[in-house]
């Protein structure tokens, strides 16, 4: 008897959905086993996650608050992943975006809300784009591995943020906490519906629509998809991959930078150390789970947001490290990756 994998001619949409759902279920089971081995009751842990994320209207709004930056950054990395350029630096790009927005508030405060917010957004977009553009340029010109440069730039951005909030920008009245003074009122994105959800959510819907059109309805999107699928074919068709890398990285970083600005302007109202809670990395999972479809990423981001809210509940309610939620994230990715095999192949058992 031997196992044989046979390529499927086509894999219908319902099967993609079923394998993904089954993979996530298996991942949660494996995570439960791991929690159990660590002396944590998996039922209690999952109940805590579900309750904290979906328990009430307020909880749902908090999940949306977490999902918002995730969804925006996932749009950012999705663009680069489509052409198989691995921008792992959404985290750093969001950080420098927030940093730039905070710099504008600090040095060029204006009273008019629209003017202030657009200046902040502009600064954030350029800072994020520049940060990712460095990696894009190094790749285009000298073929420097973008996975490593974007990652190293994450660490550098983190230190840069620390430098400012511990040093020159620290609020003297913050009792030693590493944070800046609260932003002026004009620099705050308004909250909506009496929750902590802010106007960034409109920007998210707009960006999602734009990305959906850009990726699937324009020549630009078509070209970067071809480059991702078959770089050689793209070259023969006369597409200039290297020139596109810089552009794609810039746009990608710009979107992530905007997400960073939304976080500080809409949610925290000041710049503080460790504000981003690894959104940049989780966004990568969101992008992959949504099969690089912008509209789908909205739903996936919401579910991942639930996991982040749940992670906090585990920390506060059960005294587990915040990073515990990462176990589930990693496992979900493992199982979804494995599940993709069964979407593309049919496993047959041959006798003899």
């Amino acid at each position, binding site marked *: 008897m031997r196992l044989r994998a046979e390529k499927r001619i086509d894999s219908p949409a319902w099967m993609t959905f079923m394998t993904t759902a089954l993979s996530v279920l298996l991942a949660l089971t494996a995570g439960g086993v791991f929690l159990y081995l660590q002396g944590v009751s998996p039922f209690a842990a999952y109940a805590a996650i579900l309750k904290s994320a979906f328990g009430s209207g307020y909880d749902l709004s908090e999940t949306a608050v977490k999902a918002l930056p995730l969804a925006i950054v996932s749009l950012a990395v999705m663009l680069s992943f489509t052409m198989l350029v691995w921008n792992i630096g959404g985290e750093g790009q969001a950080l420098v975006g927030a940093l730039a927005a905070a710099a504008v508030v600090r040095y060029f405060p204006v009273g008019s809300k629209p003017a202030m917010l657009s200046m902040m957004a502009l600064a954030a977009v350029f800072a994020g784009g520049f940060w990712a553009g460095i990696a894009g340029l190094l790749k285009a010109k000298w073929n420097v591995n973008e996975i*490593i440069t974007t990652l190293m730039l994450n660490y550098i951005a983190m230190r840069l943020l620390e*430098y400012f909030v511990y040093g020159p920008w620290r609020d003297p009245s913050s009792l030693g906490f590493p944070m800046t003074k609260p932003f002026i009122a004009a620099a705050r994105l308004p909250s909506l519906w009496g929750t902590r959800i802010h106007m960034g959510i409109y920007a998210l819907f707009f960006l999602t629509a734009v990305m959906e059109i850009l990726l699937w309805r324009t020549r630009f999107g078509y070209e970067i998809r071809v480059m991702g699928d078959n770089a050689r074919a793209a070259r023969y068709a006369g597409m200039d991959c290297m020139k596109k890398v810089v552009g794609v990285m810039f746009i990608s970083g710009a979107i992530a930078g905007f997400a960073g600005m939304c976080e500080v302007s809409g949610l925290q109202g000041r710049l503080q150390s460790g504000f981003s809670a690894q959104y940049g990395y989780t966004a990568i999972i969101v992008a992959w789970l949504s099969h690089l479809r912008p509209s789908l990423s909205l739903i996936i981001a919401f579910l991942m947001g639930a996991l982040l809210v749940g992670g906090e509940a585990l920390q506060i309610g059960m005294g587990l490290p915040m990073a*515990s939620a*990462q176990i589930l994230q990693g496992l979900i990715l493992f199982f979804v990756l494995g599940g993709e095999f069964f979407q593309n192949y049919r496993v047959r058992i041959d006798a003899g």
Partner: protein
Amino acid sequence: METLLPIFVAAVRSGTPILYATLGEILTEKAGVMNLGLEGIMLMGALSGFAASLWGGSPLIGLAAAFAVGACLGLIHAFLSVTLGSNQVVCGLAMTMFGGGASALAGRSYIGMTIPGLDSWSIPVISKLPVIGRIFFSQDIMVYASFALVFLMMFFLHRTRPGMNLRAAGDNPKAADAMGLPVAGIRYLYTVIGAGLVALGGAYMSVVYNKFWAEGMTAGRGWIAVAMVIFAIWNPLQAALGAYLFGGVETFQLRLQAAGARVPAPLLMMLPYLMTILVLLFISAGKGHKVSLSAPAALGIPFYREERE
């Protein structure tokens, strides 16, 4: 020289975790598999090494346990990337997240504890050599083992039959398969051993270097090791150079901080990451053709016999 000497001694020690991780990744990549989960594997190695040293009462037990845990994680990566042909970049990211989270959860009760760890042991006679005796031969046995590993790997990869089989699996799996080599088996083997070495690098940090465990203690060293593989153009000897260079920068910035330099600490802490980018740029821009020539030709590409033309 007398004042610089301690910096060099410390540079070798602080470069050793990176060296183990880089060597492990070279072995894996030479066989054609790209494992980007180094950061997660190092963290799991650091935790299991620490915990096993504590319970087993000996640092050697800790190091062995770390290798075993790393090998198991390597097996997961091999199954996904060799058998199921998954995207290896995403798989590596998954490993990074899983390793970071799992080590944080499982290690929560070890925070604040210390172990005696592995002491240094000067090699008789040659440690008395001027300068190099202090720098290279007054360290601990894990450092000496890493020297041996560098030369062993040089010899193994280029002068032995199994080493050539390994490279064939990474450069031209189709031809290797036609020669009757078990490509999948070879890739499995070196992904597992490679990940074991990566975990040893992590364990060096908790068992030898710091003698404690802290959440996220590798602080990006796994990713730096991925960069060092390219800097080393897949050459173990050059990997040692890269690792010690990194160790030197790390030591330098720590000394500056300790000496109360006027440059703020966060800016100094950027240096190792900045240097990694610069070093990578230097090698890619200056020796770009050499990088593309030395890279295993089938790196990261799954191989299935059934898809032979």
